[in-house]
């Protein structure tokens, strides 16, 4: 969190970091128990969490339908320091920062293979020629399976499609990020006024970068359940991106069995919020060859050792995490 808070100063770049708060809505007693536990876990780990009553929620967000017959709002878990960031600006800011520190960024250059000799990775073959390196670090999200396949590695990861949606521009209507807990729906409002929202994965392996209509319907139904005011809002655009869904819903930041080849991936659909911390821990691993304290559990061998980090307890079903 502090890495986000200092990001714009560190990079001298406006990434539109906006700590407008995030609210996870609660719809049942069981969910209140689960979210109370989540809130306690957050506080124990030094983050903030605040359990809000329906009355407070209604006062702060008067447009929410708290008495939906099927999914009444029974409360919420708020992290007031959470919020939104402009994702392009994060990529640009980091790229410029890295460039200024002497990193060479080679654009339009695809890694097409790894040069591996005697169990050691010596460099990468690319569409623009061979690049040698002492340490090779892979970090390609949805393309993880395809890339590591070039090193004859199979991963505990499936690639799935997740869709996102933007509405036409509206006056300010939504102060913060709100997630619907009974289905899967989350929403915030961009500075341009469009509502930015999404929901579940489509639920099948995909590299197509586009989804199908059943999920569009499901997401819009989630929206209507809590924001009946959105009924007349028009969808402006939607798209699908490829998620590196791991078998337990948690990421991997680790060395591979090939000397000199490292891997960071399996972030599922939570990889953006993790960007600074993920990079921080990966850099630590690359520099010291030992996992960072925060990433000690994110190892390849946790599956064979039975040490999965399966927060939802749904087992090896990547599409359900």
């Amino acid at each position, binding site marked *: 969190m502090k890495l986000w808070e200092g990001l714009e100063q560190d990079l001298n770049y406006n990434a539109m970091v906006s700590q407008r708060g995030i609210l996870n809505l609660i719809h049942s007693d069981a969910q209140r128990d689960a979210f109370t536990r989540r809130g306690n876990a957050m506080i124990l780990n030094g983050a903030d969490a605040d359990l809000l009553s329906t009355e407070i929620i209604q006062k702060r967000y008067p447009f929410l339908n708290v008495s939906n017959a099927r999914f009444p709002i029974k409360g919420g878990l708020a992290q007031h320091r959470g919020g939104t960031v402009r994702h392009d600006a994060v990529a640009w800011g980091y790229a410029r920062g890295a460039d200024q520190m002497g990193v060479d960024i080679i654009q339009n250059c695809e890694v097409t293979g790894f040069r591996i000799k005697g169990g050691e990775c010596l460099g990468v073959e690319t569409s623009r020629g061979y690049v040698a390196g002492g340490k090779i670090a892979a970090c390609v999200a949805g393309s993880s*399976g*395809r890339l590591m*396949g070039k090193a004859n590695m*199979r*991963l*505990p*990861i*499936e*690639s799935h499609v997740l869709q996102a949606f933007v509405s036409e521009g509206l006056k300010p209507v939504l102060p913060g990020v709100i997630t619907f807990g009974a289905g899967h729906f989350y929403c915030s409002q961009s500075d341009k006024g469009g509502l930015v929202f999404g929901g579940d994965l489509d*639920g*099948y*392996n*995909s*590299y*197509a970068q586009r989804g*199908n209509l*059943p999920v569009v319907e499901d997401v819009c139904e989630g929206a209507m359940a809590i924001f009946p005011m959105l009924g007349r809002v028009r969808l402006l655009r939607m798209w699908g991106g490829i998620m590196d869904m791991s*078998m337990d819903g948690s990421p991997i930041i680790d060395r591979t069995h090939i000397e000199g080849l490292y891997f960071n991936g399996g972030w599922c659909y939570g990889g953006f919020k993790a960007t600074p911390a993920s990079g921080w821990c990966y850099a630590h691993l690359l520099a010291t060859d030992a996992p960072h304290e925060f990433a000690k559990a994110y190892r390849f061998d946790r*599956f*064979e050792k039975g040490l999965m980090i399966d927060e939802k307890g749904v087992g*090896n*079903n*990547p*599409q359900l995490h």
Partner: protein
Amino acid sequence: MIINHPLLGPRDSAEFTYMGDAKQIDRPDWQSPNALAQFIDYAYMRDNPAGAHRELWYHEQGDRSFLVVTRDTTTHEIFSVELASDVARIQGRIA
């Protein structure tokens, strides 16, 4: 997506539950000497191809059959649909 069910004809994919890679038909023999390694591979490791993918779809809102669907993961085009029980029978896994 429309899945051409071998018994019921074309059905909306929304009637189905996706169950992942069809290799899950090939449950390893728990008595084989390297059963542990085989089960780790079976449960957790995936080819995850960009292109033709053999996968299991469960017709939960229909006749409850498991289907093996061969589908292009880059276009969502479906090449073939078989009953998983037929596939298992051809492999000699069931009588």
